[in-house]
């Protein structure tokens, strides 16, 4: 892949005279000039509210906004653009579904999720199950951080209302076989809703929601080179029709009378209030950027960097990586522990050389509890990550080790 680093202005920054080694793309990605420029274009040339104005700039803004929806729809292989709901983030996308389910009768049902979920795809279902007093079943991992597909046959039953599963773990890096999972769940119970947290998948690999066979998919813009403050929910049109609105307000209305309201058709039914217009348009530019690189190239670059990093980390005594051992089986994220050094100290010391990694439980406390690890250090990669970034990580870890030896 060609060097894209010059597109990312923050990578030009020096702190205390040293370059930035950004290894926290799983938390949020850096933004290319193309995305920043597109957001600026909205604010400087057609800043107007969408949908309502009968004047040129408002029409331009509306067109750009809806164009972004089309781009996102094409990018993930949606059947049509009106299946794309813009939210604030992936968490909110999942909460749209949670809210809709909370209005349905779940008594006698069961909810299923996995132990490797981010809190945002765990807590809503746990709370929903607690609220209805229905079983909340958790799919556990094996020793290498992989879900055993055979277990699913026992977890999903005729009673299951929802299977909420991540496509890629933000800690283990495990890539789950969503297509296979959906197929098995639907075979056991065609009425089981399959919801995929794709926050770590959409930015990093080619995905197609039709191939997946899932009912709903959530992800966020800021992890895929786009602006913060924008999330996406994709769901089948029929589901969006059936789901209750998440919030009430402007833009989601067809008719309001003193005694009743008719909501707009999806996706607008779920987009109450003025949206993050610049953010959505910026996401459109991020999709263009990723499309121009090609998602297969993005993926193979990350596999190469991950493989290099796994080999580099293996040279440091006392470092143990959690998750699948091979780069091809994982996303571009590596969580690890180092004997004698707490993850926070590792992150703090690496920061001395501007090596940015994350430490803690990465919003996956159930997983860390399951593994009996209080905290892990996590390095993650994206299109702009180079082998020399990985070298800086490995050198930094050697320094940490020396200090705590």
């Amino acid at each position, binding site marked *: 892949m060609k060097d894209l680093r010059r597109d990312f202005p923050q990578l030009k920054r020096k702190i205390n005279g040293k370059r930035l080694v950004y290894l926290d793309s799983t938390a949020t990605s850096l933004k290319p000039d193309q995305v920043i420029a597109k957001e600026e274009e909205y604010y400087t040339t057609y800043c107007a509210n969408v949908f309502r104005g009968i004047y040129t700039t408002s029409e331009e803004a509306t067109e750009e906004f809806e164009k972004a929806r089309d781009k996102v729809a094409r990018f993930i292989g949606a059947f049509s653009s009106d299946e794309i709901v813009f939210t604030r983030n992936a968490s909110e996308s999942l909460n749209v579904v949670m809210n809709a389910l909370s209005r349905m009768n779940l008594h006698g049902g069961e909810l299923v999720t996995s132990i490797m979920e981010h809190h945002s795809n765990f807590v809503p279902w746990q709370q929903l199950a607690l609220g209805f007093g229905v079983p909340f079943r958790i799919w556990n991992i094996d020793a290498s951080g992989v879900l055993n597909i055979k277990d699913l046959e026992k977890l999903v039953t005729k009673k299951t209302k929802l299977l909420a599963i991540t496509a890629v773990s933000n800690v283990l890096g495990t890539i789950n076989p969503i297509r296979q999972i959906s197929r098995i769940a639907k075979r056991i119970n065609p009425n089981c809703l399959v919801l995929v947290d794709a926050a770590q998948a959409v930015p990093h690999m080619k995905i197609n929601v039709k191939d997946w066979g899932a009912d709903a998919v959530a992800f966020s813009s800021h992890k895929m080179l786009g602006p913060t403050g924008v999330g996406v929910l994709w769901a089948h049109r029929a589901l969006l029709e059936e789901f209750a609105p998440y919030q009430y307000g402007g833009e989601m209305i067809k008719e309001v009378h003193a005694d009743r309201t008719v909501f707009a058709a999806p996706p607008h039914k779920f987009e109450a209030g003025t949206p993050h217009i610049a953010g959505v348009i910026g996401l459109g530019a991020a999709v263009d950027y990723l499309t121009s690189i090609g998602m297969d190239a993005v993926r193979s670059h990350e596999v190469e960097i991950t493989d290099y990093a796994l080999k580099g980390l293996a040279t440091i005594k006392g470092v143990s990586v959690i998750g699948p051992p091979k780069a091809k089986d994982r996303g571009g994220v590596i969580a690890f522990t180092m004997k004698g050094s*707490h993850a926070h*100290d590792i992150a*703090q*010391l690496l920061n001395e050389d501007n090596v940015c990694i994350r430490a*803690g*439980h990465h919003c996956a*406390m159930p997983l860390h509890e399951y593994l009996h690890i*209080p905290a892990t250090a996590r390095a993650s990669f994206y299109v702009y990550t180079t082998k020399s970034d990985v070298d800086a990580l490995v050198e930094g870890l050697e320094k940490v080790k020396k200090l*705590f030896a």
Partner: protein
Amino acid sequence: MDLYRDVILDHYKHPRNFGHLDKPDIVMEEGNVTCGDRIVIELCVRRSPRSISGEAGQASGVTIDDIRFSGDGCAISQASASMLTEKVKGMGFASLKKMTMQDIERMLGTTLTPSRVKCATLSLEVLHKAIQSI
């Protein structure tokens, strides 16, 4: 590298008053879940005759006779706990109550970045909870 001064690393690698008391009067535990830090403090206390007879401010006449800590966490939380146990042994509850984050910073001899304040003050938090419990 100011944060990881030799004295902090020394306390981290060789924690003082680490372990358990035979018959503690108070055991208090607190965790910082975002870091996975956990600290348990055990205290043996001594009451001066004044506080036994007096009614108001009964904690004021109590001092720490012995102290141990245990748990796990980052170098900052563990070193801070170790240094704190040395500092407070023999101290009265009244002075202990007045201790703040600034005292911890002085004790560590460093300024804390916002993300590390919680780590450094966890042991003080546990100690404050412990002395409030009697």
